[in-house]
Structures are given as C-alpha cells and as structure tokens.
C-alpha cells in the first residue's frame, strides 16, 4: 500500500492544535502494549516533540490472560512545550480488553477519548476482568468520548492474505491500534514499517502482517468517516535547545555514562551483576559493550557480583555492581569491605517498591536510608541520585569521578521509573567531557625509600592506589581494622578512632568538591521551597512552575548529592520559611534533612508504586502556603 509518510505531508488544517497530549495504551501483558508505546514514542521523537514515558507492567512475565493483574500499560506525554512527567491523566486511553478498562478507566480525564477493542469484550473476558455487566452496554462510559471498534476482527481481516494462524494473526492488533493512533496525530509510519521489517527480518510473513495491520489501522482512520467522531490533534515541535537528539531510557544513559566515566578515568570497566528487576537492563546494556573495555560478569548471586567488582577494583579496574533494593541489602557486608579497604566502586541501585520482594516492577524512592546508613559499623559512603533518564549519563560520570578520586564506594540511586522510562536527550560530545585519569603507584615508587604507600593526600585523605603486579609495594588489604601508619592489622583503640574519623572526614571532604546547591526554580529565599531528589524532579518542577505562574512564591530545590550534601544547603534551606519534601517513601529525605540541619520540613509521601502527579504536589504547595505558622 502506498501511503504518504513524510513528516508534515498531512496538512494541519484538519487538526486541532494541542500543546500536549497524554496517551495510555493498556492491554493484556501479551498484547504488546510496551512495544506499541515505545514505537509511538519514537514517532513523537522524530516529530520533534518533547516527551516523557511511563511503562507500567506487571511483575509476572505472562500473567493469566484477561485478568486485571495481567494488565500492562504504557503512557506517553508528548508536547510542544517542556515535558517533565508522563502526565497526570491520560487524554486518550486505548484499551485492548475489559481488564485494561477496569484498571485504567479511573485515570482517564473527564471527556477524554477512550478507544476500545470491542472484539475482546467477550463474556469470558468480562468475567475475568470482574464485570457483571458489559460496560459497553450501559451509559457508564458516557462521560468519555468513547470509540468502540472491533480491532480484533479488523486486524484479522487486514492480515488474512498472509495465511497466519488465528493466534499469530491476532498478535498484530497492537500494530493496527498504533496505526490508528499515528493517524490521529498525523504521524508518519515509514520508520515503524522499517523497524518492523528489520525486527522480523527472518519471518517475512509476520513482518508483512504487522505492516499490513499498521497500514490498515491508519487507513481506517482515514476512510471510516471517523473525522466527525474523532478529533485529530496536531502537536507542534517542541522548542528545545539546538543539537542532535535521541530517545534514551535510563538504563541506556546509565550504561553509556559508566562507559564514559571509565574512559575519563582511564580504567577498564568491570561490572559484576545479578539479574533483578528493575536493574537488569543495565547489565544487558553493558554486556553488549565488549568493544569498550567492558567486562560484564553475571555472578551466581548479589554478593558474588559485588565481590568480583571489589576484586577487580583491587586489581586496578573500575569495579561496578548494580542491583535493586533486595540485592543491595545482600551486598551490605561487601560494601563495608570496600569502605574498609578503601577501593573505588560504583553501586547502582534501581529502586523498587519494598520491603522484601515488595513491588518489583513499581517505582519507589524508599532506599535512601539503606544507601546512607545501611551497613554495619560506622560506614559512610557518598550517595548521589539521578533525576531522569538522560541525567543518568552525567550522574554515572560523577559517581565514577568521586569513587576514583576518593577511593570509596559510591551509591548511585535511580529507580524503576527512570530505568525504563524514555525521554528525548540532547547527545553530548563525548570527546569534550572533562577527564579525571586515575593514578596508580608505580614500580619507581616501590624503589623509592621515601615513598609511603599508606600516606594520605591532605585534601582527599586517600592513600595511593597500589595494584598487584607493582614490584616493591606488596601489601595486604582487608576488612580487619588497619593501622593508619603501617597498614597492618591494628586493634589499638586510638587507631580505630583515628581510622573511623578518617573514613568520615574523607566522605565529608567531598562536599567541597561538588557544586554548591542551586535553586532550580524561583527565588533563593521566600515562604516555601519544595525540595526533592531523584525521579520526583519532573512533577515537582511542573507543579512549582504552575504555582509560580499563578503568582505564588515558591521555589524548587533539587538535590543530586544526598551524602554529603552540598556545603551551602543548610544555609539555603534556612532562608525559606517552609520546606516541603515530596517523596515516594514515608519521609526518608525529610528525616535526613531534619537530622542534618535541625529544621522542620513538611512531608508529602506517596508509596503507591506510581510517580507523583503534578496536581498532588500542586495541592501540597497550596496547602503549605495557606497553612498558618512559620516553621
């Protein structure tokens, strides 16, 4: 079929201009919703929109079909303005079965567009979703602009010439749906057609069927006289900084950032990791980068993963380990070893809902205590966090820099949302990044009588990095307390005090080496500052922006460095009357701030496994501003 595929080929006059639109694709785990969503995202990216996505899928790989707990969804917010969140409420909800309707309808905005595959609304599916009556029959959907289409049979019709089995054929219904959505937003199809042909290169029938379904969905919009029924939206290009852009997920940007960090440090990268949701994508990414002096080691367990990384660092590589909360818990003792042996190490925690196994596929920020405090003994460790997918690149480089410069393990916090979500990212020029090459003690040092391998740098308090193979500098590392002067085992009480102080001072010294805390949005002083960290950046920023637009005096402070804090943070916070801390936990940053700065904060806590909505934070801002009393 010949179709116009160029961007802008379809005139904008049939379209209603919209600044931003939120679409959610929801269906059974087997319906290919993540694929549909990510391909739609690619089309938004190529159209020059800014966007943010939120893949939300069940922990089960294939939950029983048709059930509510097997519903998989992908939400994308795209627009011509700055997009920082995946959107509070979908404007368009596409549901591929009754269970998806049951789970998602409550989120659709009043008057929003609801696209329903009626072909999946069988008696059995309705039952499995928990409907006593078919919701399509009554007027329960009257509040929405609902479009009922038998997508299943349209798809079967579109692909019948390929002679696929019914089961195979129906799998293309996500592409039919995608085709319709591309029509609705005037988006080209060619790149998705190319992608399908590439993906199914070895199965030309399947490729052709998917392409046919995609085209049929698009043609349906075009010809089925839907225009009266269905609005089409035009979203203009976003005004973003000039440059080359690409779509990145957090896992990708993190992997690239770690590789960049290892290059800047001039060290081979060694990743020890063990599969765990939602951290595994980083392991997958790095395992594929063997040409970059990357050794990826899938260990037998979490402890072996960090153990091998520590061994690699001891031998002169950049050791990295990655996991999620439960795995990080298992690594605790080994982190202490790296602290004691004073070896560089980056520990990535893609946080998920807890405690215990918790909510593996849902997002949370509840491992901050674990990151800052979660080890036996007094075991200080720098902690930094990423605020979004693209930011992971720079945070990874910063983690490597601190680990190597201060010879310490560094905890890098992301979360399930950041790891899987995608956003447009302005590609940096990797050749222009500032290097921080690691230095090792040498054989010449070994022959120099005056060289002291245990002497500390007065600024960083680190000892030289001595790697095995260096003649004349043989030493024994270990987890038993060592003498400050000689590096031998020492049980001396004063020495333990001195070494403990040194470990504290070393991490504290980093505060001088990180940027001063800036106010991201708003004034440097005033009645209210909203303080956040990690992936709450987007909703906080949008909410603060909105409040400022409404004339309210509120500022946004976003923390990247969580331990130690920037030197000026205490003073900066003290200049605000009130501090509001929204967090996807029960108040972990709040208590840390209270502890460090003896100031009170207003908590806004959410642990539903879902990111904050802008409106939730906006509401808390209003409440904080209207409430009486100073802090």
């Amino acid at each position, binding site marked *: 079929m010949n179709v116009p595929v160029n961007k802008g080929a379809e005139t904008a006059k049939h379209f209603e201009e919209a600044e931003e639109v939120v679409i959610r694709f929801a269906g059974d785990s087997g319906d290919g919703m993540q694929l549909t969503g990510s391909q739609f995202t690619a089309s938004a990216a190529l159209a020059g929109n800014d966007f943010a996505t939120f893949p939300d899928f069940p922990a089960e790989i294939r939950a029983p079909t048709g059930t509510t707990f097997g519903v998989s969804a992908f939400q994308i917010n795209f627009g011509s303005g700055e997009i920082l969140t995946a959107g509070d409420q979908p404007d368009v909800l596409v549901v591929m079965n009754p269970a998806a309707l049951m789970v998602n309808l409550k989120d659709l905005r009043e008057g929003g567009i609801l696209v329903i595959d009626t072909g999946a609304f069988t008696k059995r599916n309705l039952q499995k979703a928990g409907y006593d009556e078919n919701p399509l029959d009554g007027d329960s959907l009257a509040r929405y602009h609902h479009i009922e289409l038998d997508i299943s049979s349209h798809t079967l019709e579109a692909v019948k010439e390929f002679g696929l089995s019914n089961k195979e054929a129906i799998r293309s219904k996500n592409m039919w749906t995608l085709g319709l959505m591309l029509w609705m937003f005037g988006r080209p199809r060619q790149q998705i057609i190319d992608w399908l042909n590439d993906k199914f290169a070895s199965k030309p029938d399947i490729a052709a069927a998917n392409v046919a379904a995609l085209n049929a969905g698009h043609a349906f919009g075009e010809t089925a006289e839907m225009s009266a029924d269905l609005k089409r939206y035009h979203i203009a290009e976003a005004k973003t900084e000039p440059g080359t852009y690409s779509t990145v997920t957090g896992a990708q940007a993190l992997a690239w950032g770690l590789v960049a960090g290892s290059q800047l440090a001039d060290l081979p990268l060694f990743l020890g990791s063990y599969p765990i949701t939602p951290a595994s994508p980083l392991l997958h990414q790095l395992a594929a980068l063997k*040409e970059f002096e990357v050794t990826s080691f899938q260990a037998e367990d979490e402890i072996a993963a960090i*153990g091998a990384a520590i*061994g690699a660092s001891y031998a002169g590589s950049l050791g990295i380990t990655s996991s999620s909360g439960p795995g990080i818990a298992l690594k605790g003792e080994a982190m202490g070893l790296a602290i004691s042996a004073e070896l560089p190490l980056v520990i990535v925690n893609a946080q998920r809902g807890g405690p215990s196994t918790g909510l593996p596929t849902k997002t949370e920020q509840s491992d901050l205590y674990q990151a800052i405090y979660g080890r036996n003994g007094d075991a200080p460790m720098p902690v930094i966090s990423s605020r979004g997918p693209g930011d992971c690149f720079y945070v990874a480089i910063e983690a490597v820099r601190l680990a190597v410069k201060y010879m310490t393990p560094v905890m890098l916090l992301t979360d399930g949302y950041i790891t899987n979500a995608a956003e447009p990212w302005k590609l940096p020029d990797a050749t222009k990044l500032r290097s921080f090459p690691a230095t090792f003690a040498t054989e010449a040092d070994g022959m120099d009588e005056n060289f002291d391998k245990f002497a500390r740098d007065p600024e960083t308090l680190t000892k030289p990095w001595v790697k095995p193979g260096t003649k004349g500098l043989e030493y024994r590392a270990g987890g*038993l307390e060592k003498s400050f002067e000689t590096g*031998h085992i020492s049980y001396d009480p004063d020495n333990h005090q001195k070494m403990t102080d040194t470990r504290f001072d070393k991490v504290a010294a980093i505060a001088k080496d990180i940027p001063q805390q800036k106010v991201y949005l708003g004034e440097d002083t005033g009645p209210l500052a909203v303080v956040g960290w990690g992936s709450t950046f987007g909703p906080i920023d949008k909410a603060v922006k909105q409040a400022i637009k409404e004339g309210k005096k509120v500022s946004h402070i976003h923390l990247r460095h969580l331990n130690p804090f920037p030197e000026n943070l205490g003073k900066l916070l003290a200049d605000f009357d009130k501090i509001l801390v929204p967090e996807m936990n029960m108040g972990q940053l709040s208590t840390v701030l209270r502890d460090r700065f003896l100031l009170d904060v207003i908590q806004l806590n959410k642990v539903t496994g879902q990111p904050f909505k802008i409106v939730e934070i906006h509401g808390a801002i209003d409440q904080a501003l209207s409430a009486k009393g100073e802090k």
Partner: protein
Amino acid sequence: MNKNISNEQLTIKDFTSDQEVRWCPGCGDYAILKCMQRTLPNMGATPENTVFVSGIGCSSRFPYYMSTYGFHTIHGRGPTIATGVKLANPDLDVWLVTGDGDGLSIGGNHMLHVLRRNVDINILLFNNEIYGLTKGQYSPTSKQGTRSPSTPYGSVEAAVSPCEFALGSGARFVARTVDTAQKHMPIVFERAHQNKGASFVEIFQNCLVYNDEVFADFTAKDVAKDRQLLATHGEPLIFGKEMDKGLVLDTTSLSLKVATIGENGISKEDILVHDETNRMLAMMLVSLNPPEFPMVLGVIYADPAPTFGDAIREQTAEVRKKKGPADLNNLIRQGRTWEVK
C-alpha cells in the same frame, strides 16, 4: 598459572612477611604456610605477581604472613573477590585460602561456581572439620555425632566431602594432601600452580585446640602407611607398609576393593593404574574412607579445560574484531537521532 621470569633466585625470605604469625602453637596451619613460602620460589613465582585472597576463619589469616599481595576479605566470599582479581589482571597468580566453614558452608555457593567456571586460581581448602576462630562449633565437614558447643549431644547432620563436592561442581583439578606431608605437599602445590584453571586442593589440617586428632585414623604414625595411598598418574594404586596392598575394580558391583598382592592370585599387574584424567575413577577414589579403605592423597584428578578468563577474552576479541574500534560518540548516536536547529 604464570611463569614469572626473575633474574635473581628468590628464597623463602622473599615470601615471608614481617608479621608475627598468630595461630595457636602446634596448629597445622604453620606447616602449610612454611611449605607455601618454601615452594613459591621453586615455581618461579614473584611476590609482586602473587595474590593471596582469603575469606574469614583461622586459615584466612594466611595472606598477612605472606609478603606477596594479599586480600583478607569477608566470610565465604573469597572466591568472588579472587574471580574479580583474576579477570581484571590475568597475569597475576591468584591463590585462594579458605576453610571448611568459609569455603563449604557460608561460601559453598561461590565455591561451586568458581569451580564450574574454571577460573584460573589455586584454591587451598584447609579442612579441620571444625569452626576454630569462633571457638569450636561443628562444621559442614564434621563427622556425624561431633560434639561441640553448638551440638552438645552430637551433630546429627551428614558431612559434605570436599573433593566429591569439587568434582560434582565440575572442577578440572582436584588434589588432596595433609598438613604434615612436607614431602608431597610441595608437589601438590606445584601441580596446582601449573594447572591452568581452578585447582582445588583439600588439605587435612589438624586443629589442636578444638578438634585434635580428628584425622588420626589415617595420619597417626602407626597407621599412616597402611591407611594412606599417594596416587601417582600412570602408577598402580598401591599402598601399605610393605606396599603390598592395592585397589582393584570389582566389575560386578562397580566399586573399588582393597586387594593384597600375592593373595588370592593377585599380582601387581591386577592393581588399578591411576589415570588422573579419568573423572569416574577420581570420583571413586575421593569417596574412599578409612579404616576400610586408604585415604587417597595426591593429584586425584587433572584434566584441564579452557579457563573462564580465556573464554571471556576470546569472545571479547572476536566482538572487537567484528565491531571495529570503540567510539562512544558513535555508540550514543547509533539509534534514531534527530536535529533541532
């Protein structure tokens, strides 16, 4: 295993640290330490290229007494750290010192995987069948019925047999020796060092304080010759004071039997010849227990296979050849990109 070329002949002194050895007087560990310090120069090892990694326990203090590089790590995790060291720098000679609790209880999982992966390290498992450093609790190798502070009425568990575990895990080199065997321990160390891949050596080590004489049934002077069999590749499996006993295969029960040369028409030719590349034979030899059978010592199994590190490096080289020079800017631009002007 690595050949280190050195101009000067190194001696025991070059491998001995200035730290005071703090094991209990009379501990079997002393003899093992001395033997290692004495043998390393003969292997062509150098202090700078040798790393001793250990876990936690009495034996794990070993690295402090060597003047090589060393890493005294955490309980049971020695194999993981040793794996990282070896993968990061294949030129290093990596030794892992562990015990029955460290290596087979808390670190049992790691031991399994370091062996099956065939990481090129030498593993010395000091087996004293007891937890010494924590004051005498029974260990996973303790014989059933062992009375200890944590089993005052005797342990009820079956014990794990280290060499059977190693073979079951896919080890390609398994050897056994005794702390007092100053003649053949060096040979075992040298063979372990020569072997490319994970070399597993079980050392029966006497804990004078908490488990004295636990191996006396085959190490006591009066019975040793009759209860120890030193296996040598290509030689018949003969033992005994008079060297008149040997192992024969009973083909009906598929098991080993002790036969006496000169009795029942048995001649030296009827005795099984040791083939260290025969895994089935190795499995049978390590499962023999005194007093019915001799304790088999020496290199019981040695059938090298490609090492983990070599396999990784080979694959990496192939990928690099195929993908060409690595360029980060190219990498991050390889997906769909677009320009904003």
